[in-house]
């Protein structure tokens, strides 16, 4: 049934262009290398500028001025910071396990960069050698690739925590591994609803589906909510910055790191933010789609179209990056067990139930032959019906899970007698140890 709909609805599931006119062979190779270089450079410079943006935005929120000494309005501050980090001494703690200690920042840094590879950031561009796809690698399993690679980032943090041989680092590493694994599940589950709607895991196809039907954020409102919360946890940003929790764990897993190795964790955090924002844009906000027009989705693929869609993509991306910073400078931090119970007891059941509801709704709407394509006033009935359903669910959800019900109070988990018992056990051990020696 769904497959039949897909085949019969060319506006939604048509292709952007005939694969026959795509760029091939040597030009393809050259274009790919060019895209890699450009995306890498833009991402790195962007991350550097993000650190400045973070400081400027935090200053704005906190009634301060922010960095303004280096360059015009502080524009060269990231360069100064980078230079400082390169010039500083790389310290190696005596107790650290050096190979993993060196490897950990890289393991954190690399996945955060290569996840961006599959994200389509603009409309295709027509050149004399053929049509060039505007993502570094147009992988048909784009979304699965992102799930797979982004979950590798946790190894960097865990290994950093463990190899530092420092109690604070270890606690930070442990927390982060638990946190990232828990929230990855909710994140993946929330994204499944998008896949149900688009019928494809390719990010290009998801963008295309939204161009035909309208952005997913409305018909999958709760999915977006879960995805958004989980991606905050995935990027270790406040209110989920447990692994670093500066006031508790000094600096968490990167307590022992200095200079460029520390910088790599920093860059990894920010490029994770960029990737997570790009994912939210792609899955729920139409990717590079320009809202309210079909002009950008149809050939010819001119440079103007490319530039405009790129601008729209970047604008949406920047909005989410701003959201990250806005939240960071507004909210306090969760406690570790509150965060875990939010992940496992609220978000995961919610996302599982949501898959069932979305799947059922999509199936029912298709059986009722509700058209997916745009019908009246530029609105797709399918999109609107699912959206209204989500709106109702969201109201119910937010009334049910109002504040005070999601987050449990910080009760002591142990009774005084249990504490006494635990103390006695350790005292017995140390006594036995001292007598044994």
């Amino acid at each position: 049934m769904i497959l039949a709909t897909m085949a019969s609805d060319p506006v939604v599931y048509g292709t952007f262009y005939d694969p026959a006119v795509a760029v091939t062979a040597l030009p393809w190779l050259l274009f790919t290398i060019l895209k890699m270089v450009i995306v890498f450079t833009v991402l790195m410079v962007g991350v550097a500028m993000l650190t400045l943006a973070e400081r400027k935005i935090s200053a704005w929120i906190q009634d301060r001025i922010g960095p303004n000494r280096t360059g015009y309005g502080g524009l060269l501050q990231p360069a100064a910071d980078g230079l400082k980090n390169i010039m500083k001494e790389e310290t190696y703690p005596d107790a650290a396990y050096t190979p993993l200690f060196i490897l950990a920042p890289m393991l954190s840094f690399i996945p955060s960069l290569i996840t961006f590879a599959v994200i389509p950031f603009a409309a295709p561009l027509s050149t004399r050698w053929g049509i060039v796809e505007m993502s570094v690698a147009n992988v048909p399993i784009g979304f699965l690739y992102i799930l797979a690679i982004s979950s590798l980032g946790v190894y960097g943090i865990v290994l950093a925590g463990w190899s530092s041989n420092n109690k604070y680092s270890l606690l930070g590493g442990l927390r982060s591994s638990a946190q990232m694994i828990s929230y990855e599940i909710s994140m993946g589950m929330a994204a499944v609803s998008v896949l149900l709607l688009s019928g494809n895991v390719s990010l290009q196809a998801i963008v295309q589906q939204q161009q035909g039907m309208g952005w997913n954020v409305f018909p999958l409102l709760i999915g977006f909510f879960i995805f958004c919360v989980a991606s905050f946890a995935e990027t270790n940003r406040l209110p989920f910055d447990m692994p670093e929790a500066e006031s508790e764990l000094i600096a968490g897993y990167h307590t022992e790191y200095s200079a460029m190795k520390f910088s790599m964790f920093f860059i990894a955090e920010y490029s994770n933010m960029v990737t997570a924002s790009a994912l939210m844009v792609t899955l729920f906000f139409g990717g590079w789609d320009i809202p309210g027009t079909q002009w950008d989705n149809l050939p010819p693929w001119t440079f103007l179209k490319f530039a405009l869609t790129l601008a729209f993509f970047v604008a949406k991306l920047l909005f989410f990056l701003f959201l990250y910073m806005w939240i960071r400078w507004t909210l306090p931090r969760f406690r570790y067990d509150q965060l875990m119970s939010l992940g496992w007891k609220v978000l995961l059941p919610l996302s599982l139930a949501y898959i069932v509801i979305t799947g059922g709704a999509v199936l029912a709407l298709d059986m009722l032959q509700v058209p997916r394509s745009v019908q009246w006033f530029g609105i797709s009935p399918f999109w609107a019906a699912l959206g209204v359903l989500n709106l109702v669910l969201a109201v119910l959800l937010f009334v049910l899970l109002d504040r005070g019900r999601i987050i449990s109070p910080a009760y002591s988990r142990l009774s005084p007698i249990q504490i006494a018992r635990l103390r006695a056990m350790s005292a017995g051990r140390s006594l036995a140890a001292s007598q044994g020696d």
Partner: protein
Amino acid sequence: MATKTRTVEVALGTAGVDSDGRAVRTPMTVTENGSVTTLEPPALGAAPELAGEHMLINIGPQHPATHGVLRLVLELDGETVVRCIPHIGYLHCGFEKIGEYRQYNQVIPWTDREDYLNSIGNNVAFSIGAERLFGVEVPPRCTVLRVIAMELSRIISHLVWLGTTCIDLGAFTPFLWSFQERENVYNLLESWVGARLTTSATRVGGMAADIPEGWTDQLRHFIRTFPKTVDECDRMLTKNGIWIGRTTALGVMSANEAINYGLSGPMLRASGVAYDVRKDFPYLDYETYDFDVPVGSNGDVYDRFLVRVEELRQSTRILAQAIDRLPDGPVNSSDHRVILPPKSRAMSDMESMIHHFKQVMEGPRPPIGEVYVPVESPKGEKGYYFVSDGTAKPVRWRIRPPSYVNLSAISKMVEGHLLSDVIAINASIDIVMGEIDR
């Protein structure tokens, strides 16, 4: 027969465990006539699961969240604290001992440095104590100025507490908002006494300086703008779900326990005991001011937060009343036993010069006796105790530091909670190590 039950840890100096690894604790019933009977030991609850190897972790003395050089040795079972041992003394300066070798007025600079968030309040408290020892009365203008000083320093201290607690719980922004307001108060103090942190603003029998021209207008301006910042911080935190989740039911002290531990100040009031020295043992005519004493109900960290935020507002109320009633007149007592003669007379009049010389070189001499004067410092009941043998220097000068007494309850509050909660509870006590180590 009325009995009181209490648990006593016996056999100190041993591991405190029996052969099964159980804690050796002998609950005793103490009867009214003092005889002791032993009860059955309490049944141990189910053993906590996964009681693996415990981890010892040092929070401090250098740690971003210990508010000074407090060191907490924590024994963690996973992330649950099963034992907390506070170590103090890293900031010991010997203020009290130094005080025994200084004239009374010379001790005042040391009071700046013990609770350095409340320095002008300490100056006032010291002077009140010393004046009671000397038997000196201060003029009404001085009294009102001292009320203003006390309340300004309460605002400073609570703002620092608010900001640092926010940082400890991960909210950075209210920290800078409250520090901006603190800066405004320091500007006021600077234009009054010339110093910001170490004010040394009072003398025995008066103030070091009268307020400058136009100062009350600046203060009025501050009173107008300051509540807006408090409201902003309030909006950011009081109804914030994460903030509530992080602070409610955390480090609970019941009214009974709070009294037994000797807590005072916001810590005690959050537990529901409406004890405020300003109301119960009034000084500086506090009984004539119209203000409320906020009291919590649960005695948790959230209540302490609410109490302190409300105290910021009440301090503003007191300040407004104090400006309105500020009388004209001298700020110093006319009692020549403690007050120097005017410089012009000291330079022209023989008796005045000798008087000036004796006052400076030998110092004023209080009568023999001892005096204890408590005041309500931002942290709780702060008392200065003086013992005088009739010489110009105190035989013993003792501070009753509220932070120190409040900190003594930290083990009780922390055990059973998680590592993150230690930070929140420690922040809620509002300690200043200068006062604890003295």
